[in-house]
């Protein structure tokens, strides 16, 4: 059974090999580097220069962070080349984290309002 499993992963491995070669790896590295540089430009030039408010900037940072996370998980961690069943069972779970973030924003907003009023 286990030998059979290894056999199938190896077959799969050859398909992957064609999909993620050295060129693609350096391409993804370039994308990650460019996104990080954009974040630096926003933090050091655009926001201090008054072209964007910190509030809008925070949303841009989070969007760029999620984009970086996508590239790391999809290419470096190879999830893009796995079977759909594995992709779904790993990513759908993150609905719970979105739920945590929503709760944090709602509860945090409430506390922010009421604790500031008390102080």
């Amino acid at each position, binding site marked *: 059974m286990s030998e059979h499993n*290894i056999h199938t992963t190896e077959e799969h491995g050859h398909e992957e090999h064609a999909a*993620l070669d050295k060129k693609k790896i*350096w391409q993804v590295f370039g994308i*990650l580097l460019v996104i990080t540089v954009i974040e630096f430009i926003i933090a050091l030039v655009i926001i201090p220069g008054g072209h964007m408010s910190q509030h809008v900037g925070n949303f841009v*940072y989070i969007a760029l962070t999620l984009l970086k996370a996508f590239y790391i*998980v999809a290419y470096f961690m190879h999830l893009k080349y796995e079977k759909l069943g*594995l992709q779904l069972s790993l990513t759908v779970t993150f609905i719970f*984290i979105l739920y945590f973030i929503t709760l944090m924003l709602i509860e945090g907003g409430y506390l922010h309002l009421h604790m500031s009023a008390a102080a």
Partner: protein
Amino acid sequence: MDSLSQLDQVKTTAWSGGRSPWSVEYGKIMMWFFLLSDAFTFSSLLVYYGAQRFTKFTWPDPDLVFQSIPGIKDSGAPLVFVGLMTFILIMSSVTMVLAVEAGHRRSKKEVVGWMIATIIGGFMFLGCQALEWTHLHHEGFWWGHIPAIEELKHFFDPSVASVAANEAAMKVSGQQFANLFFTITGFHGFHVFSGVLINCIILGMTINGTFERRGHYLMIEKVGLYWHFVDLVWVFVFTFFYLV
């Protein structure tokens, strides 16, 4: 007769049993499941940080807290040092994925080279983090410790720090910031440290020819998953502590 033979036919679709429907080796699935649970641990820590920061009336300004490059410049360079740390970690993630790629081709020599590069990257990151911690510690931040209020004021937005009535709020949020910074970057640093240890073990096994005898380098892939995850977590820590 015909219908019976149809029933007797062995099904060969992915989910009809007898083989792994995801075509993933057992150890690799277990690594993914571990990383999933670890992702929840980190996100609960970061969500707590977000909740504290969002709730508090004021919070230390990251551009004022993190503005030194150890050994070169004591102030006035926000994000430069942490930018270097980010670059080192992304770079070591690339060398790791190159080791995995070399493993697919069963090229032992290349795997060894890329693994050594990855381990060096890991040690460089840990060294940078040690410098960062030392710097903050000298400024007076630690678990349960914050600088005296006159010093602490310099880490807040001047419009908040100049009002005497805000001192109590600055003490509370300054302390929360210090505790959470050392806890979360410490927990991440612990992951980097264990990642470096595992990488060293895997490097030893590669040099010994264990994977060559085994016929595949799947172990490099599994350890690679862990190492990329550490990089992934840093991307989020970087955003929430240094940018937002």
